[in-house]
């Protein structure tokens, strides 16, 4: 387009062509990205596109026969709602049905498998001290695997005495073990502990003889369970430790995330810190150690104290009892060792993918379901709004838009080209961004959002109207077009910024504070407001500056919409047409 010619009055924006090129490149890039990603339409909400409906039936937890009640069900709905709708833009719906069912509706195009995992997983998270650990399943594993199995350790989680038998990790060297034994002896643990710590090739069998000395039945049972468990078996894994209360020691399985992916088995002490002590959780990418995605947690003040206490105790212990296990739904997801007393926050690392880390963070953030659920049915549902309604709405919207264009053309004439082009640019940007945000953050467009976008036409058009009216005012003052544009812009700009800021404030506050559909709305509002500013600054204004150089506009052609005579300017020259005007209507 027109390269800047001389730019005499162009003070604020000397290179209109440049910002025009910039925004056109941005549009081209975004559109290209949209086609490259294959997501060429915005994801539609369940009211427009239908989706999957999952019915979950609540089950009582062992030992809690009356857990299914309205309060718990409502809590569960609330938690599920937040889990599937963490950002508030996915338009999923969660509601109770009958006494013990929860329906989760997920819009088409969502990863329904992932969503099912999100709503179905209970996310009971505990931090438990590790009492013993061992490689599991590999029957003839060559690594010396001293089985931990001490009796004293399993007792009511009294970790003050670092007494339990040190069970070295497979890699443990002889010296460590030796010292561990000494420590254990010093601490006055039961003799059996030292016995059991002898490295023995037959991992599982060694437990029983040593533990026999001073064992109460519960501990013995635990020992037996520990000995018998085969963590490589998925069914066994899932069942491990089920039914135990958080206050009891338990056995659990976990995968060694660091190297071989071997399954470990654990005896774990009673839970010291629970998932409910977590204030917030987030998924972050570890850039420093290149360990990939991890989940960070901040504790509440109570949780922080508990966490400091347990880590302080654990830090004095020998491996593996300086480890604590992060147990999620009965499975050890991480077993970091502790070097010093920690407080405030913790992190779970492991070979998470981004999605896994985010899912886990979401579950931790939004808490544990008070009940366990199983899927009783999964079915597809059609749009809650009939296709006819959407169709009618689209036709109506199109007619409305045509009327807007017609109005702009009649009123602004030549200027309407700029207005319509700006509206077009803003429409394209909105559409492309919404399409791209579908896969990126699960954004789904529902009917209210469509209506919101239609109202946004008004707000976007208002920016041009403010600008155009300012220009016309300047022309009425007798200025020629180019100075008029440059003078009008700073004043129009301020108005646009001030008023858009209010809209954006509304969007930001609502997005941060609220949940669910309101959040989705706030997102749309914020997006369109930002786009409005972007379009006016980088498209409308530069285009206006360039157009002002064209003869058609600069000379105020009668179809340009900037005809000084039509605007009733006070021209520096006497007007000639005046004589022809009949002067008959008079009032006040």
């Amino acid at each position, binding site marked *: 387009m027109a390269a800047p010619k001389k730019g005499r009055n162009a003070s604020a924006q000397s290179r209109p062509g440049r910002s025009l090129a910039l925004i056109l490149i941005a549009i081209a890039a975004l559109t290209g990205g949209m086609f490259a990603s294959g997501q060429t339409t915005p994801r539609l909400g369940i009211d427009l596109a239908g989706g999957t*409906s999952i019915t979950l039936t609540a089950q009582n937890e062992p030992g809690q026969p009356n857990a299914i009640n309205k309060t718990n069900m409502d809590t569960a709905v609330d938690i599920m709602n937040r889990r599937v709708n963490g950002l508030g833009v996915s338009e999923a719906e969660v509601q109770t049905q009958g006494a013990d069912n929860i329906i989760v509706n997920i819009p088409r195009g969502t990863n329904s498998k992932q969503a099912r995992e999100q709503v179905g997983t209970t996310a009971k998270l505990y931090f438990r001290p590790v009492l013993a650990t061992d490689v599991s399943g590999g029957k003839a594993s060559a690594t010396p695997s001293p089985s931990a199995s001490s009796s004293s350790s399993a007792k009511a989680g009294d970790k003050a005495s670092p007494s339990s038998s040190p069970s070295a990790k497979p890699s443990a060297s002889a010296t460590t073990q030796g010292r561990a034994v000494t420590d254990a002896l010093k601490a006055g643990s039961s003799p059996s502990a030292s016995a059991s710590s002898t490295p023995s090739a037959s991992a599982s069998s060694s437990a029983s003889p040593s533990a026999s000395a001073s064992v109460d039945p519960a501990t013995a049972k635990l020992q037996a369970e520990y000995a018998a468990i085969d963590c490589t078996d998925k069914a066994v894994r899932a069942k491990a430790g089920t039914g135990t209360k958080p206050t009891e020691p338990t056995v659990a399985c976990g995968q060694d995330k660091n190297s071989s992916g071997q399954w470990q088995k654990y005896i774990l002490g009673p839970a010291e810190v629970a998932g409910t002590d977590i204030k917030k959780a987030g998924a972050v990418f570890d850039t420093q150690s290149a360990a990939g995605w991890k989940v960070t947690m901040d504790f509440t003040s109570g949780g922080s104290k508990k966490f400091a206490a347990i880590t302080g105790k654990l830090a004095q212990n020998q491996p593996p009892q300086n480890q604590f296990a992060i147990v999620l739904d009965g499975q050890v997801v991480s077993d970091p060792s502790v070097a010093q007393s920690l407080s405030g926050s913790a992190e779970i690392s492991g070979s998470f993918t981004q999605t896994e880390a985010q899912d886990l963070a979401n579950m931790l953030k939004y808490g544990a379901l008070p009940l366990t659920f199983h899927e009783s049915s999964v*079915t597809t549902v059609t749009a809650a709004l009939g296709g006819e309604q959407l169709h*009618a709405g689209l036709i*109506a919207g199109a007619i409305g838009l045509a009327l807007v264009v017609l*109005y702009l053309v009649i009123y602004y004439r030549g200027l309407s080209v700029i207005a319509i082009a700006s509206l077009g640019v803003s429409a394209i940007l909105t559409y492309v961004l919404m399409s791209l945000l579908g896969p990126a953050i699960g954004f789904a467009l529902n009917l209210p959002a469509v209506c919101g976008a239609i109202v946004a036409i008004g707000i976007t058009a*208002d920016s041009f109207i403010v600008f155009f009216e300012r220009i016309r005012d300047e022309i009425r003052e007798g200025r020629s077009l180019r100075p008029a544009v440059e003078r009008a812009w700073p*004043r129009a700009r301020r108005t646009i910024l001030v008023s858009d800021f*209010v809209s954006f404030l509304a969007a930001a506050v609502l997005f941060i504070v609220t949940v669910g559909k*309101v959040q989705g709305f706030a997102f749309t509002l914020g997006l369109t407001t930002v786009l409005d500013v972007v379009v006016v600054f980088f498209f409308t204004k530069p285009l206006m500056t360039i157009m002002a150089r064209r003869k058609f506009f600069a000379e105020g052609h009668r179809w340009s919409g900037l005809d000084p005579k039509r*605007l009733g300017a006070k021209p520096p020259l006497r007007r000639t047409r005046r004589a022809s005007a009949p002067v008959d209507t008079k009032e006040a």
Partner: protein
Amino acid sequence: MSKLGTLGARLHRGEIGYDFVGKRKIWYGISILITITAILGLTVRGLNMGIEFQGGAVFTTGKSPVSVSQAETYAEEASGHDAVVQKLGNGGLRIQIAGIDTDKSDTIKEKLATDLKVDSEKINADLVGPSWGDQIANKAWEGLAIFMVLVVIYLAIAFEWRMAIAALVALIHDITITVGIYALVGFEVTPGTVIGLLTILGYSLYDTVVVFDSLKEQTKGITKQTRWTYSDVADRSINSTLVRSINTTVVALLPVAGLLFIGGGVLGAGMLNDISLSLFVGLAAGAYSSIFIATPLVADLKEREPEMKALRKRVLAKRAQAAATGESLEPGATGSSYEDDDLEDAAPAVVGPRHQPASRARGRGRPSGKRR
């Protein structure tokens, strides 16, 4: 259409102008009347909350030959409430109806069975909870409250506290009217309605701020002159943004009107009606209140300031003096409203020559009296 352009020119030069502030009592009165009606409607009839808020009954049927939209009609006939109908993967239907208790659900079940040509044994009736839980509603209220506090602070800093209060009053005015009309019409309140209301909230403030911005600009240095009182300037600032307000309102309302009258009215779309009605009423109220309520209110508040009182005194004194010397400086040309202008449009080029003291007329476009 050059009508508006001409109007713009004449407004710009102050040849015509509607005395918004002077006649504020009328508009206050009208608004109070509408608001009272709205509140009455709200208290007497109450809001008809949709299934998303209060839960209701859900009927799950076996395979049915009836289409979704037909089933919706049947369900609405049978129950008298809005129904949400979805087709399930197995060909059955899930019909959710708000405001149904257990006694009623049996009769509806029978009716549905005959309408949908399904064995009534195969229809499961169950109660459903709200999908828009208290949590969402409470959080939304919380967000609204925080937003209002922040926006008042922002407006108090960017403009001044009087404008912040006036904007808030205008906002509450708009929302009350919209909610009241909802209660009176008796549409069911859906999440779409709530979102429509929130859109109005944003739009109403936006519109008010645009007018206030012009007011702020025009009242800069107002105490340094003695020709105009604050109310006069406020009036002029409304008039000078009038064309903008009209254009913006038309552009914002046209698509919504399309949805409401064409989409909802002619083609008979249910939920679209709900949303576009709340939007239409709210947008119209928002445009109205920023001109007729918010700005006069600011002028009212401002005139109570001692400085402005003193200014008014000076201005009146000066006018009295001028009147004594025979020259009228009455601000205003208040008689000509927008409607009058239509008549005049028959002769489009009529603009200029009426007012001989053109210099004076032009002066009105400029508050501070400085002249280039």
